[in-house]
């Protein structure tokens, strides 16, 4: 397992975090005084209505953005304090992303898409190929390795996305509405896959979703409303 | 869809949508327009060199004046005529007469070295010895500074072109002729003709300086009328005492320019042609991206009933309009940038320098605009057909 944990096996610790966006002359407070801890090996679902700041929180944890105030610890590092350059290499080593719209490169085949994060490592060509094959096998798409995204179904494209997300064996898998664009059946397959990754391989997963069907698969769910976290849904 | 008016309004609508979307595509539009402007500017610019060169020589002769050289000579440089012969020529039928006698000037022609002002290196400058009638035989000759030289004295006058391009030819300067130094006493203009590249003095003085005895190289004659030329020529060519070649001055000068103008045209047109090919690719790029950007729009219009022809016409219209814009810009750059630019080069046939000005003529501007239009048509054709033959249903689904 990659990375170090804080005390009591805590992987992610968000403390007193505030995020303000400036839109013209307005100030929008998306997150207010937020606290969250995620132990290693947990499958956490982040739920809330649209505009509640779920994706923003995910971005902060993933080092894609910085909080206006507060601290973010991931795998023992102060992520909010790393420079852009350090953040890039930190993300490459520790984070795997899965996006709602898959975000594959249309000009690359499935296996080349999965290989992308590995290009940032010093691995040799042969080693990279091994990792890619393993990742594709884990998501069950070895047969479609040489296909371009435009010839894959939505569910298949998302599985490629997941393969890309795990190919570097990251500390943390961050998923932003992974089933948002899929039909029920494909969505279920994806959720099965994520659950397996968590239960059988011990991957820590934080998943943003608005679908209770998806959050039911997680081991813990927190709710975000108007920038504040709670353990119960707000009606 | 019925009626030509309907069709025109269709074309107008589709074209309008296209032109309205230009701000989004301004990058590729700018690329195409300036690409075409560049082609036109280069074509017109390079050819204006040849045109200017030719114009100097064309302006150098009128149909009622003639030049007589020794038979077989293709330029004054290699010609030779004796005094007796020049007298016979001056007395020939058809020659106009003035108060001082026949309007005929026996002349000789040498080349001297002078430094070119712009580079400091030597240039072959024509030095011509003339007789009094020379000032009437040539049109538009007038002094802009100083005075004519005094006959019998060792003095020279200089053409405006020569004074501008070559060093040491201001009024008051001393010019080295052979082993002597002769003062420059005046500067003359001659209607933009070849004479403006020359230095003139009294033929007798020049003969003495160059030990030419009493021989000349050419006779310039003003005829009674353009029609008198044939009479004049026949009389001279049938005279057993003479062995001469008689030409109208404008024909003679036209011949003199062929070498240079041919070379420039042989090089200029292929260069412009290549640039045009490049510009066509640029125009194709722009028009294809224009069509691609508006695929859903065009498909919608066609689904609503706009005809194929209207779509083709509007895209062609847009392409030609942009090309014409580029052409006008290029023509303007060429005209304001090059027209009248002074330069000098070698006239191969006489081995001497000729000063001239780049001439962006109406004909060249027209050629440039025509080229631009052609590029616009070729650049719009394929994209227009692609737009018109879009499969509507799939185009509507496109994001």
């Amino acid at each position, binding site marked *: 397992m990659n990375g170090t944990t804080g005390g009591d096996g805590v992987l992610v610790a968000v403390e007193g975090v505030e995020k303000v966006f400036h839109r013209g002359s307005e100030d929008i407070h998306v997150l207010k005084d937020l606290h969250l801890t995620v132990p290693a090996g947990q499958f956490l679902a982040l739920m809330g209505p649209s505009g509640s700041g779920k994706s923003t929180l995910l971005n902060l944890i993933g080092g894609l953005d910085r909080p206006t105030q507060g601290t973010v610890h991931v795998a023992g590092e102060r992520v909010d304090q790393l420079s852009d350059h350090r953040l890039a290499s930190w993300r490459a080593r520790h984070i795997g992303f899965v*996006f709602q719209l898959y975000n594959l490169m249309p000009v690359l085949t499935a296996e080349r898409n999965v290989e992308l994060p590995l290009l940032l490592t010093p691995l040799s060509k042969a080693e990279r190929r091994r990792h890619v094959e393993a990742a594709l096998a884990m998501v069950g798409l070895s047969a479609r390795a040489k296909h371009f995204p435009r010839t894959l179904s939505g569910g298949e494209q998302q599985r490629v996305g997941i393969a890309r997300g795990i190919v570097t064996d990251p500390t943390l898998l961050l998923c932003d509405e992974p089933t948002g664009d899929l039909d029920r059946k494909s969505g279920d397959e994806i959720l099965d896959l994520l659950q397996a990754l968590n239960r059988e391989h011990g991957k820590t997963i934080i998943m943003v979703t608005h679908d209770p069907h998806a959050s039911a698969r997680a081991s813990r769910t927190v709710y975000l409303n108007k920038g504040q976290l709670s353990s119960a849904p707000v009606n | 869809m019925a009626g030509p008016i309907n069709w025109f309004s269709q074309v107008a609508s589709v074209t309008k949508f296209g032109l309205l979307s230009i701000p989004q595509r301004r*990058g590729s539009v700018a690329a195409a327009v*300036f690409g075409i402007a560049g082609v036109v500017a280069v074509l017109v610019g390079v050819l204006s060199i040849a045109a200017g060169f030719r114009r100097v020589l064309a302006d150098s002769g009128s149909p009622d004046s003639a030049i007589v050289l020794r038979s077989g000579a293709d330029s004054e440089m290699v010609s030779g005529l004796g005094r007796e012969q020049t007298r016979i020529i001056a007395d020939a039928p058809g020659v106009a007469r003035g108060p001082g006698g026949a309007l005929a000037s026996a002349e000789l022609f040498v080349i001297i070295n002078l430094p*070119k002002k712009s580079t400091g290196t030597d240039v072959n400058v024509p030095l011509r010895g003339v007789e009094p009638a020379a000032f009437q035989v040539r049109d538009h000759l007038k002094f802009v500074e100083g005075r004519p030289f005094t006959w019998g004295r060792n003095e020279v006058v200089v053409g405006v072109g020569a004074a501008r391009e070559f060093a040491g030819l201001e009024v008051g300067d001393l010019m080295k002729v052979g082993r002597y130094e002769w003062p420059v006493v005046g500067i003359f203009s001659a209607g933009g003709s070849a004479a403006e590249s020359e230095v003139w003095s009294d033929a007798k003085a020049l003969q003495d300086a160059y030990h030419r005895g009493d021989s000349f190289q050419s006779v310039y004659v003003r005829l009674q009328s353009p029609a008198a030329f044939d009479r004049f020529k026949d009389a001279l060519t049938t005279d057993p005492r003479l062995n001469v070649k008689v030409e109208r001055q404008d024909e003679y000068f036209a011949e003199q320019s062929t070498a240079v103008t041919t070379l420039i045209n042989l090089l200029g047109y292929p260069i412009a042609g290549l640039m045009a090919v490049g510009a066509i690719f640029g125009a194709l790029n722009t028009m*294809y*991206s224009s069509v691609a950007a508006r695929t859903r729009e065009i498909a919608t219009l066609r689904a609503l009933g706009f005809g194929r022809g209207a779509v083709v016409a509007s895209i062609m219209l847009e392409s030609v309009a942009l090309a014409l814009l580029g052409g006008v810009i290029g023509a303007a750059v060429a005209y304001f940038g090059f027209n009248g630019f002074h330069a000098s080069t070698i006239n191969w046939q006489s081995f001497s320098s000729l000063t001239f000005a780049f001439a962006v003529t109406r004909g060249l501007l027209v050629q440039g605009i025509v080229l631009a239009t052609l590029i616009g048509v070729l650049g719009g054709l394929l994209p227009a057909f692609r737009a018109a033959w879009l499969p509507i249903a799939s185009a509507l689904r496109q994001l």
Partner: protein
Amino acid sequence: MKFLHLVWGNLMRKKLRTALTLLSIVVAFLLFGFLSAIKEALTGGVSIAGANRLIVRHKVSIIQLLPYSYKARMERLPGVALVTHQTWFGGIYQDPKNFFMQCPVDPESFLAMFPEFLLPPAQKAAWLQTRTGAIVGRKTAERFGWKVGDRVPIVSTIWAQPDGSRRWTFDIVGIFDGREKNTDTTPLFFRYDYFDEVREQGHSWDRGQVGWYTIRVSDPAQAGAVAKAVDAEFENSSAETKTEPEGAFVQAWVNQVGNIALITASILGAVFFTILLVAGNTMSQSVRERIGELGVLKAIGFTNGQVLAMVLLESCVLALLGGGLGLGLAWLATSHGDPTGGYLPMFFLPPRDLLVGLGFSLVLGVVTGVLPALQAMRLRVAEALRRM
């Protein structure tokens, strides 16, 4: 490079647009090659001028002749290794458009002075034995289909035979080649002794006179001093001289023709300006379309520097590919000789200009890519992802 297929894939994204941009670049560099050949044809004489050769001509005017007696006087001057002479014959073969230079020369000293003219010894021997013999350069021989043994008539515009006709007939005894690629093999040379005897007594001061001399100095460093000494020798005589290095003489001639370098540079400037617009526009469009993808790359962990490098690599690959193809085509096109059919003394693309062209294509790649690359580099990841 492992990132190459990502770069290549991006170029292939919009094949038509990439192809048209590439073709524009190819045409631009084809023009570059063509113009370089033209420039070399018009100005190349300067570089091949011998460093140890001086030209001696009449001080006042190029068309005036110098006495033959000057030869012996110059040979006696210190620093002078060899002297030979040439005279402008001004001849026409069939049609005035078939222009090429002809000169009467002294065979031995002439061939010794100009080792760049390669003549087989047997043909040289034949020339020495044939009074009416002439050697002609390969280019002109091929142009008119002349072979050794042919008799060719040339009409001189300046010099006449004693019977008054201007028609001279020469026997082709040899065909010479050029040692370098840019040696001019268009002229024809015949024997001075034949010329001097035969030319008309019409211009009485012409007999025993030559057009200009060429001197080889024994030490190139002394060229300036020798030139001064020659001119001093003939100062105040009836025909004063002007002596200068061959290169300076040719350069002055080129300057008279016009500022060729400026003209070709201006045309190329216009061409490159438009090419910059075309390729630059393509690159910036390409980056704009991919903002989302670039965001994903950054999310995965690509650094700003890596994203910048990737975009620059794209523009450089496009430019170098187009430049290489264009220059290659220019090379092929110019290796077939003079397209003007005889107006230019030489026509080829100097290797030096090929390298300059490749350099320009690299510059093109960098300049067209730098702004889009900077834009890509500065993308904020979270915003970029929203625009996917």
